[in-house]
């Protein structure tokens, strides 16, 4: 950790806070993945880690390397953009897949298709 010795204390404290916040939120999301009872409840848990969990760690990384190299190091923004674009795609697709499978098995507590004629067309959604 010798490379971090010339980091100012305020930056070290801020980086620590952001990293711990991000890691803590990610851990809470993972706990939710195990603790929650139904699949649709668990669908909400990973987005904790993917939004502010990842956001905290990415902000900390940007701050850390920018202060350390005294120039803006912004390439973590790419991961942030990538995560905000991809997480909804994954979770939406998983939610729809679960709904599709539950409906085809006539599971309880599953809402009927929005379309009145009862036909499920997966190609409709964006």
């Amino acid at each position: 950790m010798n490379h971090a010795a010339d980091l100012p204390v305020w930056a070290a404290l801020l980086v620590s806070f952001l990293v711990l916040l991000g890691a803590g939120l990610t851990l809470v999301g993972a706990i939710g993945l195990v603790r929650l009872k139904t699949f649709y409840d668990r669908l909400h848990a990973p987005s904790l880690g993917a939004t502010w969990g990842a956001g905290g760690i990415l902000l900390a990384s940007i701050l850390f390397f920018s202060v350390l190299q005294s120039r803006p190091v912004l390439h973590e923004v790419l991961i942030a953009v990538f995560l905000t674009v991809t997480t909804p795609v994954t979770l939406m697709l998983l939610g729809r897949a679960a709904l599709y499978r539950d409906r085809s098995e006539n599971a309880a507590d599953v809402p009927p298709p929005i379309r009145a004629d009862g036909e499920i067309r997966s190609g409709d959604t964006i």
Partner: protein
Amino acid sequence: MSRLLPYPLLAVSLLAMWLLLNGLSLGHIVLGSVIGVAASNVTAALQPPRSRIRRWHLIPKLVAIVLVDVWRSNVAVARLILFPGQHRRVSGFVIVPLELRDPAALAILACILTCTPGSAWVEYDSTANKLLIHVFDLVDEAHWIDLIKNRYERLLLEILA
């Protein structure tokens, strides 16, 4: 102009991505611009639906609202996961009728709703233009419909025609 740059926003984003990955220098600006223009021309063959941004100045407002909402929802869901005994949580599905039809605006709405841990986009029907979401802590259905319609959809309708 439009022959060379069919999707200017895509070309600029690709250039920005190239510079973020490789560092800022004149050579990389030239190379990144060439790649951005070429790649956006290649995507033109796919003919993605085109949507126009009408009001640029509302975008920062939307971003700020979403960041704050995502943060609030993060805290609320984290609290519910860690201390489940506080109150009886009921989760459920809500059907939201939409006015938005623009695919880009719908994609942004999907990102917003899924990134907010309290709600998840499950299904959308384009003929009925209705949306099915799953809400983690469902207290009042009307509150959620009102939230989506007045907080996000109205802004998106103003930004994207």
